[in-house]
């Protein structure tokens, strides 16, 4: 028997209501204390197209996408045959009987289930039948995998909250499936057993986590324009703020505005940041491109702004509902002329929460736009996590001169590097002091913010800007390093870490190959990134894009003599990265 270590893929069509069934399945396993993860592979339309939902149970706690499917639930006539064809030998298939799939392969285990018949006792209404068939396969799976039905029912109650009728119907459907499955002769070797790995853990998607992080980090102005996969970030922020950020006086301590487009969204954020608000926007690739001009203004005029980029597959509209890490290079250098932006790259839902605050602090501290590069896999899929720590650090509002300080100083020069860190002091509009005002512009200026076309003013100012951004390398979240003196190193960022961590275990167990790991969490890179490369002979740079963009940024930043050590390992299929592909590739290149 294979216990608590398998992947289930449910193949269906979007809009058919399988989402709740899949969540229930995932939650049931979670409640049994088994490490679990789920990934939704959905199409870019609203209803009727093929969708796959993959649930992985892993004793070891691996949460990356598993390349092999151990158990397929085939509900979609359109894709059923291809889905079955794609399975590895020995896998199991639960399918809707009318699809008659058992004939097409003889190296698989097939479980035909007449789902319509199974739910008929529960309902005769056609629309309801369509819905409840889904909960029925949960029941079937429960039986075959020995998932505790009480946990399934608990999960259903949670899923449908107060709605008793819905809950009852779904429980009935699940039971029907469960009973029907009693008639199925168990032929596969997959099963679950209770564990205690999830005590105290939560299950949440990265976008909700980011929204909570921003709310607890005191974000006050949000301007956005809807785009998959970032919309749910702002939408959960709206929901959260309505609940927790409306004062006793009924007044909202936030303003969230749906702008007319992404140019306007960032423009509003910049105006708000300039006037002293903690402001952010959330978008994805196409929005990043549209924000290029404003990003350059914010960099050059030195205005705090936070931009979340929940990455999807590009270029252009690309695959709007598939995951990638393809905006690293664009974000880091966004806009014409010489620009360089601070970029944070969360690698877990907890980091979505914490970095939402880091980004707002860094933006105000360094008076510059900060990009946070999440991705669809992290943002829209649910992940297990330890509960998020309440932020103890006070908000960093950066260098702002108050009326009182101005009275003391008498005057100030907006762009003077008085502290040697390249960061000048600013004043906010509305500061009630005759010397408070200064003129903000995207054109050349001197230390007092006066217009200047002088060569020396330009050079000095641009050099200071470079110094300023360089300072972020130490202030931004430092890399996560697991180094044990191996010869081979792996460099990754964001969600790649899950595949990398599992791959390292595979390399160790299967090939006896040790590989150290550094996960980059911010750009410009911390010095430890240089040191990591310097202390490893060969460093595989893992990227979820075509051009190896993390590798490209390393090429731009690291000392040239270290670059020959880098080995690009870039993949982009729209599917979350899996460990097996990495292991095979590294093994091949190491032997």
């Amino acid at each position, binding site marked *: 028997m294979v216990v608590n270590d398998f992947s289930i893929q449910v193949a269906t069509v979007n809009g058919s209501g399988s989402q709740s069934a899949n969540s229930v399945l995932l939650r049931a396993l979670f409640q049994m204390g088994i490490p679990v993860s789920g990934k939704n592979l959905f199409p870019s339309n609203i209803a009727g197209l093929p969708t796959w939902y993959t649930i992985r149970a892993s004793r070891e706690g691996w949460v990356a996408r598993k390349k092999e499917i151990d158990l397929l639930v085939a509900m979609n006539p359109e894709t059923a045959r291809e889905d079955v064809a794609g399975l590895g030998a020995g896998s199991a298939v639960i399918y809707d009987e009318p699809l008659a799939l058992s004939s097409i392969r003889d190296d698989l285990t097939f479980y035909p289930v007449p789902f319509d018949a199974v739910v008929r006792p529960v309902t005769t209404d056609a629309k309801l039948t369509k819905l409840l068939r889904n909960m029925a396969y949960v029941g079937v799976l429960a039986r075959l995998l020995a998932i505790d039905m009480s946990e399934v029912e608990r999960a259903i109650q949670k899923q449908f909250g107060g709605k008793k009728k819905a809950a009852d119907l779904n429980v009935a459907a699940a039971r029907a499936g469960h009973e029907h499955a009693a008639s199925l002769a168990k032929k596969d070797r997959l099963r679950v057993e209770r564990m205690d790995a999830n005590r105290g853990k939560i299950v949440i998607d990265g976008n909700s986590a980011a929204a909570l992080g921003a709310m607890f980090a*005191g974000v006050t102005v949000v301007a956005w324009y809807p785009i998959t996969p970032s919309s749910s970030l702002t939408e959960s922020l709206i929901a959260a703020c309505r609940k*927790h*950020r409306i004062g006793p006086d009924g*007044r909202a*301590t936030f303003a969230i505005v749906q702008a007319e487009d992404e140019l*306007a969204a960032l423009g509003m954020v*910049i105006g708000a940041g300039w006037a*002293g608000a903690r402001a952010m926007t959330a978008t994805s690739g196409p929005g990043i491109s549209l924000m290029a001009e404003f990003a350059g203004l914010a960099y050059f005029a030195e205005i705090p702004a936070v931009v979340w980029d929940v990455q999807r597959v590009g270029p252009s509209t690309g695959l709007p509902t598939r995951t990638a890490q393809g905006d690293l290079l664009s974000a880091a250098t966004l806009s014409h002329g010489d620009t360089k932006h601070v970029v944070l790259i969360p690698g877990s839902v907890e980091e979505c929460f914490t970095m939402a605050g880091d980004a707002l602090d860094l933006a105000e501290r360094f008076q510059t736009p900060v990009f946070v590069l999440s991705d669809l896999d992290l943002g829209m899929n649910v992940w297990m996590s330890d509960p998020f720590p309440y932020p103890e650090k006070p908000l960093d509002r950066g260098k702002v001169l108050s009326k009182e300080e101005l009275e003391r100083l008498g005057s100030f020069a907006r762009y003077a590097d008085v502290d040697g860190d390249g960061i000048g002091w600013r004043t906010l509009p509305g500061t009630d002091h005759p010397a408070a*005002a200064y*003129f903000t512009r995207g054109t050349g200026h001197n230390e007092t913010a006066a217009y200047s076309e002088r060569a020396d003013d330009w050079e000095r100012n641009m050099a200071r800007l470079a110094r300023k951004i360089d300072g972020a390398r130490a202030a931004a979240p430092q890399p996560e390093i697991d180094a044990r003196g191996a010869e081979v190193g792996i460099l990754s960022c964001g969600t790649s870490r899950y595949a990398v961590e599992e791959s390292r275990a595979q390399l160790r167990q299967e090939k006896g190959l040790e590989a150290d790991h550094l996960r980059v969490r911010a750009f410009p890179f911390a010095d430890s990134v240089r040191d990591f490369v310097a202390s490893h002979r060969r460093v595989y740079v893992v990227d979820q894009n075509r051009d190896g963009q993390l590798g490209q940024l390393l090429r731009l930043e690291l000392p040239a003599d270290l670059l020959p050590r880098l080995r690009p390992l870039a993949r982009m299929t729209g599917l979350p990265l899996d460990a097996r592909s990495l292991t095979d590739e590294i093994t091949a290149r190491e032997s």
Partner: protein
Amino acid sequence: MADAAQTAPRPAAPRTNRLGLALVDYRGAKTTLCAGCGHNAISERLLEAMFDMDIPPERVAKFSGIGCSSKSPAYFMSRSHAFNAVHGRMPAVATGAALANGSLRIVGVSGDGDSASIGIGQFVHLMRRNLPMVYVIEDNGVYGLTKGQFSATADVGSTLKTGVVNELPPIDTCALAIQLGATFVGRSFSGDKKQLSAMLKAAVAHKGTSLLDVVSPCVTFNDHEGSTKSYAYMKDHDEPLHEISLVPSYSDISVEYAPGTTVDVKMHDGSTLRLRKLDETYDPRDRVRALTRIAEAHGKGEVLTGVLYVNTGAPTFLDLLHLPAEPLATLPQVRVRPPREALQKILDEYR
């Protein structure tokens, strides 16, 4: 000697406003625009209006896009913060600042190219939102700063010095604004000191977006025959719609009024805008009539000036957001970071 002392002339103290500020306290840097550029006159009227209305310069924030017109915020009110943004996208930046600090008095200065060409998208949505601000378009029908190409407000048949003729219909930003639900819309002429000053004061007093399209000749590229934005053209075609004067008062005055008389529109700061109804049928509160009159004027090749439309009843964008009295920008941490228990409660829902 005592005599001498008594008869010695005292230096005349400069005129000050209620805040004790002199006009110089509202001045800006020396202009770098062309001598005679209409934009300079508008800057003068603007700073005078702020002075006369006792607006503290520190409470004013100036915004602009890119263009000769958009440079002018540097040439008035140096004691006010200013943001010279990017071409055509000032409305978004001003909106963000208003969200961050609703107590700011926002003045936006733009050009016809900045607002009607590249910026028309943001212009449309700004008008829709009724963000509290004064939005001045310094309208010369050309791109001054890039040396005289046509903007989207250039009139059909007007000709550049290069001889190129414009054949596309002009966008009437006032008509557009009224169409989109703007709440204070007027048109004036940079050379008409009296009307422009009065309209600027009314605009500043209005609660909501005040759009003023001010025809402002470009002496360098568009002040010639064939252009309806030239001084010459304006002198013959400028048909003032009504005279305006601001009567400071705090009593509520009715706005029912008969032809030939005057209407006093109550402003939200308690001041009153008096409209003299020169026009038999004109009512500045009637959108359709306003659009009709503008269209008629266009038909006659006339430029209709004056306050074309006023709606003092509409909520502003900020009203809709239910913000606190204090600026969001400076709320203390306790008000923007929910307590520990809140996080606890939220996380439990994800268990």
